[in-house]
């Protein structure tokens, strides 16, 4: 199960990060189509099967795949790289994939795990760990489900360490504000 790691509210100005994401017009818009296109173009073997497995699950459950989209924002591009550096120091890990996710009201990023194109390459260098940080104030209707736990009204800046970087999760938003989460996949230093 996810483990409480600590709080970053006094270390990182998350409100500023959110503001920068909100005003950005260059966030990475992810759709099922974009995921499929990327997987077909870049993935092969088990990686390709992983992508297809998630999409098959969604289709089997009756999701309208056109309804599913979210945005990602990256350190050094959409917000200060120092945010990533500070976070890496806190969790004592080398950053491999770091991003802020944004989910609009009325949108789900349904049951899935994050397929990583470079997973095999990264694993050759050592083990992987993942953390999530609740970077916004608690917002009505903004929910993260991770493994078998529902995270709601979590204090701003709170970090949880995942049990497994491949854990299933979903973001959903039935409120009126966009949902922002900070994700950090890295290689622990110890």
């Amino acid at each position, binding site marked *: 199960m996810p483990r409480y790691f600590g709080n970053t509210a006094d270390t990182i100005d998350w409100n500023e990060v959110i503001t920068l994401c909100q005003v950005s017009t260059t966030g990475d818009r992810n759709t099922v189509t974009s995921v499929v296109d990327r997987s077909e173009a870049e993935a092969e073997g088990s990686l390709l099967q992983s992508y297809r497995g998630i999409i098959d699950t969604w289709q*089997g459950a009756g999701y309208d795949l056109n309804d599913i989209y979210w945005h990602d924002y990256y350190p050094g591009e959409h917000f200060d790289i120092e945010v990533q550096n500070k976070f890496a120091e806190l969790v004592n890990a080398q950053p491999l994939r770091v991003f802020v996710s944004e989910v609009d009201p009325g949108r789900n990023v349904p049951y899935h795990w994050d397929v990583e194109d470079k997973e095999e390459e990264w694993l050759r260098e050592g083990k992987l760990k993942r953390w999530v940080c609740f970077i916004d104030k608690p917002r009505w209707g903004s929910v993260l489900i991770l493994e078998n736990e529902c995270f709601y009204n979590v204090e701003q800046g709170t970090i949880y360490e995942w049990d497994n970087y491949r854990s299933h999760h979903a973001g959903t938003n039935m*409120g009126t504000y966009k949902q922002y989460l900070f994700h950090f996949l890295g290689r622990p230093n110890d």
Partner: protein
Amino acid sequence: MIKNIGICDILNWDKIIEDVANTKPEYVGPSHKRGDNIPGLDEILDMWDTAGYRTVTEGGTVAWDMFIPGKQFDESIVAQWNDWYGLDCKNVWISRIWPGRFAPIHWDAHDDEANLPECKRYHTHIGKPQWGHIFIAGDQAFYNQEQGTTYEWENRKLWHAGTNCGTTPKYIWNAW
């Protein structure tokens, strides 16, 4: 204030869900629209519009199915549920939310809203716990609730919402 009032285990909820799943819902919510003369409705619709919600028929994700006693399920189930909790709820329905669909933040503005007294409301988690079945009422999120668990709300006008980011339809019993 929301209170757990126990588990109703005298009803075969799986069978009730199975029977309801084999019927056509009475209607697909939301049943009210802009311009309906219902106190409180504009505030809800304003929130939805500002946040960008749209119904499924408008190309969005807002939709839930409604099942009514005496139509899609037997009224005797309502009597048994009321007896179990010592209640006398007259307004009862089962709601269903498909994966990817939303009943966004709202309270249950009623056709006869102007003439209704304030009263308590109840909800029962009639499905077994399923990944992604999430319900919010007041400031509480309900997840992985044991089948048959019922909660009492202080007031039927409490803000609530439901969605489903899992892989199976979600069913909730509602009463006041």
